[in-house]
């Protein structure tokens, strides 16, 4: 399994053997939101551009957008996730995945952060 890469907006993405990219939200972002209560996922078939908002997630007092790390077509969404939001916190890099995208510009993956760079980004966040 390929190692995940990260967007500065805290989404992770992993290129799978079938050429699809699985997208989720980093454990750091999930922890920061706390007490998740609602999620809206994009529709399957939607064409998205890198950096475009593709869904929203609400915690007790905040609504956050999440963004497509790469351009492409949304080919699958984790439809059970909105009814099992605790999965995001328990398994953010596994069963807590959000969408699968068929990338149209795989080179966009090269612009994302690896684990070490993302860890550095988190450490530099103001507290």
């Amino acid at each position, binding site marked *: 399994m390929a190692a995940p890469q990260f967007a500065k907006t805290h989404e992770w993405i992993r290129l799978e053997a079938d050429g699809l990219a699985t997208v989720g939200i980093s454990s750091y972002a999930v922890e920061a939101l706390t007490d998740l209560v609602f999620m809206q996922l994009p529709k399957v078939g939607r064409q998205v551009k890198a950096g475009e908002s593709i869904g929203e997630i609400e915690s007790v007092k905040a*609504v*956050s957008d999440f963004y497509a790390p790469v351009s492409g077509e949304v080919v699958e969404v984790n439809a059970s996730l909105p009814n099992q939001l605790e999965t995001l916190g328990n398994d953010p890099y596994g069963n807590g995945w959000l969408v699968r995208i068929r990338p149209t510009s795989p080179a966009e993956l090269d612009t994302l952060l690896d684990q070490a760079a993302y860890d550095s980004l988190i450490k530099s966040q*103001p507290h």
Partner: protein
Amino acid sequence: MTELLVWLDEPAEGHANMAADEVLAGEAVRQNRPLVRFYRWSQMTVSLGAFQPIATAEAEPAIASLPLVRRPSGGGAIVHGSDLTYAVAVPRDHPWGDRPQVLYDAFHQSLVDVLGSRGIVARLHPGRGLQENDEGRLLCFDRRARGDLVVSGPSPDGHKLLGSAQRRLKAAVLQHGSLLLETPRGVGAAAAHAGLFELFPEARSWPEGAIVAAWLDRLTATTGVEPRIAGGPFAAAHADKIAAAAGRFEDAAWLRRR
């Protein structure tokens, strides 16, 4: 020291206030500094949280006569018109833009301090947690989240006077807050929460501007921001952008998105 640009705006309708706040978020990014608007509402209006089901609001007889608008921020429904609303917009890379609780606590604790200096004991609620099903309660002032400003009341949860909620965008955080000054008029008992002036009659004599000034002074003392009152209303300075943004908040598709 970070400058906090402050507007004390005239009352406006719901869609105009929401549009102005959306523009405020964009301006915070463009100017790379926090901005805040304090304002009132020109008519009694219920604002819904970003994902609250509209059917729940329409089924509540206590607010049946009031117009509805949907906020971009989360949280519960608020009856506006007898409250003082603020919207603060912060670039995501500002210290206030990191974890949600940081910005809540900055504004709420500073008002706790202001009230305390005037003899009113307030505190930040520790939060009831999801098991209390607060999300099932329509109205913000019936909910208790961590950091809500409460004063002593008939229940251990206290009486809530200030609640806030956020929209966390790619480059900015927009936080809405509502300080309940008086009991809303024209609503049923279920929405008729007592405000600061009913609970503490001495507060009625405080000029509104003095409350805001003391609040900003305390923010300076606790967070180091340097407030500066802007010249002229925010709405006038950004009329074109606000007019362009207002359409979305008037659109039934936005109001009825859930």
